[in-house]
Each structure stands twice: as C-alpha cells, then as structure tokens.
C-alpha cells in the first residue's frame, strides 16, 4: 500500500499547531491494531455517529449540533494516551467503513453521519487549522480576482445582508452543484452556473468533496469485501464486522437508563428481540411503507407508549417515517395530533389503552397473506414449534399462537400465557436482560483469555482505495 508521502505525514504526525487535527481518511494507514481495539474503537465511533443521528432526528439546529458533536467526541473518542487519539480516530473510521460498506442502506447512513461529523468538526477548528485542512483537500477552485470581486461586490454583499451576516471579501468560484446546501438555502450568489462561495462558507465545498470521496471509497471497499476480505478473514475479522453491523442499533448498556424507558436509537433492536408478532408486523410495515392506517397507528402508537417511548421520541419516530411518504408538513398537520392524543396531550382522554377487541389479529392478517410462515421464521421460530403455532392459527386460537411464539423465540416457558402486546414485551425483556448479563460476563472472559496478543492486521487487511 503506497500512500502519497506528504499527505500521510501530515495526518499521522503528532498534532502540532499547523497540522490539521481532523484526518481526511484518504487512505488506510499502516498501523498495528489489537483485535480488541479494532472492535472497541469501532463501537466508540458508532456511539458518536448514533448520537449525531439522534440529534438530527430531534431536529437540532446547526449551532446546537456543534455542541452535540463536541460533547460526543469528548466522551467517546478520547484516549488515555494523547498520541493515540489520532490513530483511534483513523482506525475506527476504517473499521466502520468495512462494517457499513456492505449494503446500500448502511452505506447511505454511514455516509450521511460521517459527513455531518466532518462538517461540525471542521467548524469547531481554529481558522489556522481550517486553512491547513483546506490546503490538504487541494480543491480545484480559485479565489476570484480583485477585478471580479469589485464587479460583483454589490450582489455579494446583498447575499450577505439577506442572511443578516457580515460581508466577506474572499470568495471561491465553484460550479453551483458543489454547494447544494448553500443553493438550497439561497445563501450564496450564483451566476451562469457558478456559485461564489464566501471564505466563511467554504466548509460546504469541503463537505461535498469529502462526501463524494467517501461514497466512492465505500463502493470499492464493498467490492473488496465481497471478493476477498470476507473469505480471507472468515475466522478472525469477518465475525466481528458482521456482528458490529447487526448490533448497530443495539441498546447501550453502559449508559444509565431510567427504568421503563426506551430511547429512539434502541427501537429497531428492541423490536427485533422483544416485540410480539403483531407489533413487529406493524413496525416493519411502517418501516417499509412509511405509512399506517388509523387502526395501526393507534395500536402501534399505544404499544410504544407502554414500552416506554417518550412523547418527544414518539413524535420524532413517526415523523421520520411518515415524512418519507407524505412529507414533514402533512405529518405535522394531519398525524401529529393523533400521536399527542395517544399521550393524552390532545382531546379529552388523558390516557388511552390498546383496544383489545381482537387481540393478535395480525396473525390472521398474515396467515391470509401466506406470509405468516416467513414472518415466524424471521423471528427464529422453526420446525416443530413453527408447526405448533401454525396449528393454533388454523384453529383461530391467536392468543395461544402468540404464547407459543413467545416460548419458541425465548426458549422459555410462559405459563400464564400472553394476553397483551405490552405484557409480551415486558416478559421478553425480563428474560433477555437476565441473559445478557451472563453473556457479557462470559464474553469478557473469553476475550481476556484467548485473543490478547497484538496482531498486525491493518496493513494486511485494509487495502482501502
């Protein structure tokens, strides 16, 4: 792996005043990594990206985002040895590239979060460091000449005043496509296809380049992953990488949690492990269609409330799904009321409960569509247990079918039966939590004993473009 000398030095040398403190991850570094750090660093960076994703879905404003990112970096990306901070940053980024390169949806999420992270890290830098970073990017755009500036001064100042900001005197000229965010907010002067980007807005240009580089790199990494790495590393890294992505929204046990509350970022994981089939069905339906009919909204909404999703998070969850289909505006107008209603914030009712007119009726719905087998299989119900459940369904004993499903999924008996979706959930959680404790303990011991020796894996493995 040959890397252009100067560039590599500049981001691997210890942080001096002039050297930029944000790596731009052009090529994978030649660093040795302990296997446990490989995973640990990735998890830490994932927490940062999750934090960003959460903040965005809560609609944090740009100035608030700066603080969010600053705080997340401080909490998760520090390292006891100052000299290792940069290595940790770089290693964690490249590990997550491997984890997130493998599917379109994963790539999209990673790209968007890493780009956001980069944007706010850049804005947090001193202007000297910013200039150094810009030099490193080596953008193909020129600063406009004095004559050109004088010519356009009026218009440029107008744009600045229209944003109530002070006027700049240094402008870069770039095709308008390179600064879509500025164009969208009408924060830049454009003429004949060129945008005149003020020095203070240059982060937009860098972000575009950073994003397009990373996007291409992820595609190439994916190719390498499928053609080589997955097979070569099948005994060592592949299991780690695959586990990292499936637990990617996993609950964060290290954070203190109020009893009986769940956070938005855990919801996918919890749905997979502890939702009864009827709610899983609705949950997957909304993820797929970004829409649910009134009855479905009511059922899932009240269920989630019972599970411990707070009103703000519930609104954020429904909005993020629905706005993909009907747009944020229509959501606010037509659907937000119903969500608040579920929480007793609208209308007469102070609290509402799931109507149990026909419990577990989604069994019926699914069986009609002949999807029940697949859905159960998906939950891990197979063979004998699957046939037992199907038998109950055929005889229209939906609640018994639900109970049997619970037992098959959890490998534990449930003598009192399942009578309510929220009961299914809380029983499931009780079982899983006791189990996680033991698993974590075991795992820690295995790791300690078995794979402690440092392994020179980076240079061999990470031939990233």
């Amino acid at each position, binding site marked *: 792996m040959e890397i252009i000398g100067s560039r590599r030095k500049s981001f691997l040398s210890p942080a001096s005043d002039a050297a930029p403190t944000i790596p731009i991850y052009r090529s994978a570094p030649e660093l040795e990594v302990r296997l446990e750090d490989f995973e640990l660093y990735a998890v830490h960076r994932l927490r940062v990206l999750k934090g960003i994703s959460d903040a965005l879905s809560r609609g944090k404003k740009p100035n608030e985002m700066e603080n969010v990112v600053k705080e997340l970096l401080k909490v998760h990306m520090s390292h006891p040895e100052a000299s290792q901070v940069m290595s940790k940053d770089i290693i964690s980024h490249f590990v997550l590239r491997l984890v997130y390169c493998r599917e379109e949806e994963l790539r999209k999420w990673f790209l968007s979060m890493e780009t956001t992270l980069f944007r706010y890290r850049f804005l947090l830098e001193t202007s000297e460091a910013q200039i150094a970073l810009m030099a490193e990017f080596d953008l193909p755009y020129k600063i406009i000449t004095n004559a050109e500036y004088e010519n356009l001064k009026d218009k440029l100042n107008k744009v600045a005043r*229209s944003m109530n900001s002070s006027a700049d005197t240094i402008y870069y000229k770039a095709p308008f496509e390179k600064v879509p965010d500025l164009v969208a907010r009408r924060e830049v002067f*454009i003429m004949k296809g060129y945008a005149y980007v003020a020095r203070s807005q240059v982060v937009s240009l860098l972000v575009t380049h950073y994003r397009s580089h990373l996007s291409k790199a992820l595609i190439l990494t994916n190719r390498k992953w499928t053609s080589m790495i997955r097979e070569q590393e099948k005994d060592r890294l592949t299991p780690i990488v695959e586990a990292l992505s499936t637990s990617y929204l996993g609950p964060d046990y290290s954070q203190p949690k109020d009893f009986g509350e769940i956070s938005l970022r855990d919801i996918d994981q919890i749905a997979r492990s502890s939702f009864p089939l009827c709610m899983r069905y609705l949950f997957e339906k909304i993820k797929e269609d970004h829409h649910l009919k009134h009855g479905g909204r009511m059922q899932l909404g009240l269920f989630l409330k019972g599970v411990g999703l707070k009103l703000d998070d519930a609104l954020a969850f429904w909005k993020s799904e629905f706005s993909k289909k009907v747009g944020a*505006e229509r959501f606010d*107008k037509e659907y937000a009321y119903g969500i608040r209603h579920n929480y007793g914030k609208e209308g007469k009712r102070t609290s509402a409960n799931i109507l149990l007119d026909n419990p577990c009726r989604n069994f019926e719905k699914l069986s009609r569509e002949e999807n029940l087998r697949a859905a159960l299989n998906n939950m891990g119900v197979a063979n004998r247990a699957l046939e037992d459940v199907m038998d109950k369904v055929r005889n229209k004993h939906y609640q018994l079918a639900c109970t049997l499903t619970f037992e098959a999924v959890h490998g534990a008996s449930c003598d009192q039966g399942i009578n309510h979706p929220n009961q299914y959930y809380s029983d499931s959680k009780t079982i899983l939590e006791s189990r996680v404790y033991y698993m974590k303990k075991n795992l820690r011991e295995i790791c300690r004993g078995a794979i402690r020796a440092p392994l020179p894996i980076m240079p061999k493995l990470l031939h990233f473009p």
Partner: protein
Amino acid sequence: MVREEAENTREDMVIDGVENGHKPNYEIPDEFNSNYLKTYYDKFFPFAEMFKWMSYGNDRKHPGCDASYFGRREFSFTLENDIYMRFQSFNKAEELEKAIKYQCPFKIDIGPVYSVDPKKRNSYAQSGDNVFRPVERELVFDIDISDYDDVRFCCKGADVCSACWPLMTVAIKIIDTALREDFGFNHILWVYSGRRGVHCWVCDGKARWLDDGQRAAIVNYLHIHKGNEHSIKKVTLVGQTFHPFMGRSAEVVKEFFEEKFVLNQNLFSDEDRYEKILEMIPDESITSELRGKWQDKKRSRDDINVVRWGQLKHLLQSGKQKMLGVRRCVEEIMFTFTYPRLDLEVSKHMNHLLKAPFCIHPKTGRVCVPFDPKHCEDFDPSSVPTLSRVSSHNLQLLEELNMRPLGSGGEINLENTSLGESYRYFKSSFLQPLLKSCKEDIENAHAAKVQQSSNSLSW
C-alpha cells in the same frame, strides 16, 4: 356499443373523404375518441423530432456516441380506461413510432434514462446491488393553476381563464430567468400541459446529470412558499435585504400584482377578499385603521382595488413603520398571491414521469404544444390547436386534414397546419441548438478520452 359503432362509421367516412379527396361537408363529432387519436399519431405526431431530441446526439455514427442511449429511456403509455404500461423502451425511432401507432396511448410519459434497458429490469433485479437505476434525466418542472386556488377568484380546479392564466406567465418568467441567468442552463423547453398548467424541460447535459440532492437544492432555491392550506400568509421574508434572485423576482411579482392582478381578481372589492389580505398584516392597529377606511363605500373615480392597495401600502411603508417585519408585509402579500407555486416532488427525483410534448390532453383535446418563453404573455391556452372542435374559434387538426387540397398525398407537412408555429419553434429554436451542443459535448468528451489513452500508451 351501438354508440361506438356509430362513431366508427363516421370516422371511416372521414378517412374515406380524405383519401378520395372529397371536401367533407359534415361536422366532425366533438368528443375525443381513440379513432381521432389514431389519425393524430398517423398524420401529425412528430416522431422523428422526438427521437432526435431523446437521443441527444447519440444517434450518429461518431465513435463517441452511445448506441444504447435511446434504448435505456423509459416511456410510459396510458391507454384507454387508465391502463398503465410502464417501462417501455425502444431501440429505434421506427420501434417507438410503431408502438405508439399500435397502442394509441391517451397519454405518453417520458421517464429517465436508466443504467440498463428498462424492459430488462427484472432480469437485473436478481443480481442485487442496484444495477437498475436512473442515471440521467432532464430537470423538469410542473406548475398547475389548481395550486393557486386559494388566491384566484375567477376559476377553481382545472378551469382556467384569461384572468388567472397570467399567473402562469409570471411563473414562467421567474423560473426561466433563474434557470438561464443563475444556473446557466441554455436548452430549456416550455410546454403547455394541455389543460391547467405548464411543464418545463431543462435539457442541458449538466442538468440531465444532476443527482437528486442537487435537484432538490435547485427546487428549494426557487421555492419560497411555506405553510399549508390553512395558513393565510404563505411567504415570510427575512433578512435586511433580498437575495439577488429574490430581488429580481420581486420586481416581476410587483409589476404583475399591481398592474394586473389586483384588478383582474378584484382583490379588494369585497370584505371576504380583503379580510384575507388584512390577516397577513401582523400589526392590529394598521388592520383596524384600514378596515375602518374600507367599510364605508365612498364612490371614487379610480378603481376601488387600486385605491385600497395604495392605502394599504402607504400605511405599511410610511415613515412611522420602523419594524422591518411590517414593511416587508407588502412584499409578502404580493409573493403569497403571485410567486410561482411548483410541484416540488416532480422536480426533485430523477424517476418521476412527465407527459411528453405534442400529446393530446384527453379532457380538452388540446395539443400539448411547446412555446417560446420570451413571448409567454402572448400564449393563450384557449387558442391552442385541438384535435377535434371544442369551441367555434378553436383550430381543429382533423378538419384541416380533411380540407387539404386534392392529391396532396398521405403525408402532411406539419409546418402548414395550425401546429406549424409550435412545431417550428420546437425544431429550430429548441432542438437545433440543443443537438449542436450535444454534438460538441460528445466530440469533446471523445477527444479527451482519446488524448488520455494515447498519453497512457506513451508511458
């Protein structure tokens, strides 16, 4: 069934009439039907030009041309009884022509150019990894007069008249200027949608290659309306001054609003209407002062709308009003009423379909004609050529066909029909310059490629 047969017989007679050169002395039945459409596709529809356009210069023998280009474009047909045929694709002009003449679609839509032939999309779907995806698409805009229903009082829904159509003119002027001056596009086609609006096709290479994010950016740049149908004031303008684009648009909006729209729509003539406007003013004392003035109906020699708009402006912008928000309100009112209202989703995504020019609108029988945005004030939707007679002053293509002199043969020269003007504009003002620049683009790209490979050979 009986009725259909009756129409068929009459239709046959028309065709006979043409072929025998008899001058028909009977009326063509007014209603739109598929037999008329067949004749239209047979005699009028400009297949050759549509193919040229959609090929973007790739239909030549030059080594830089991409022979698969046209074949990867999606066409979609809507047949009678709302049967949709999506993902149609054709390799040659003749195939397209044959299919349209055979299917006789009520509507032809044009979609994006895909990475692979859209007909074979299913065989690629199995391979996963998103092989079948849109790679190129004109930047398109769709503006419908029905989106202005809360600010026009002459018509509702799909209806349009000479009092509200000028809203379209304003939209065309503002959007067209921004596309050319700001974004630097040159090859822009405006088409009447056949009933209640206009479509815009931006065909520059740079526009066709935009990704969805960049399309959304352009749309947001042009889009200023916020809020929903319940909020009265839809535009909020902030900042000490206007962005140059907004400043330029404000001039167009102001001229139109003050000189035409206030009068056309009688905006201040009765309480219902002016109350709507007063609600947009944030200052209670001003609204009650104006309300007081307007309640007693003093006779005036000047138009009541003009007088009241003048009073409102004077109060809001007089020296006393220091608050920018209050002064801005005048512009906000004008923008709310007359600034272009775009169908955002159509423009944001590459894979949206848009009706092809030169289709016939099945409800109005009007041809979706291209027109010159430089003279958009002169465009009158009610005088657009129609397939069959809609009203006495409409031009009727079928009648023209029947009126042709004896022995003029099977082919009709579009230039000599009432479609002539639109056709000539499409061909010489849009298509010719477009193909010229496509040719240059292809040749330059090819030359660069050759240069590059010869460089690497010399290593």
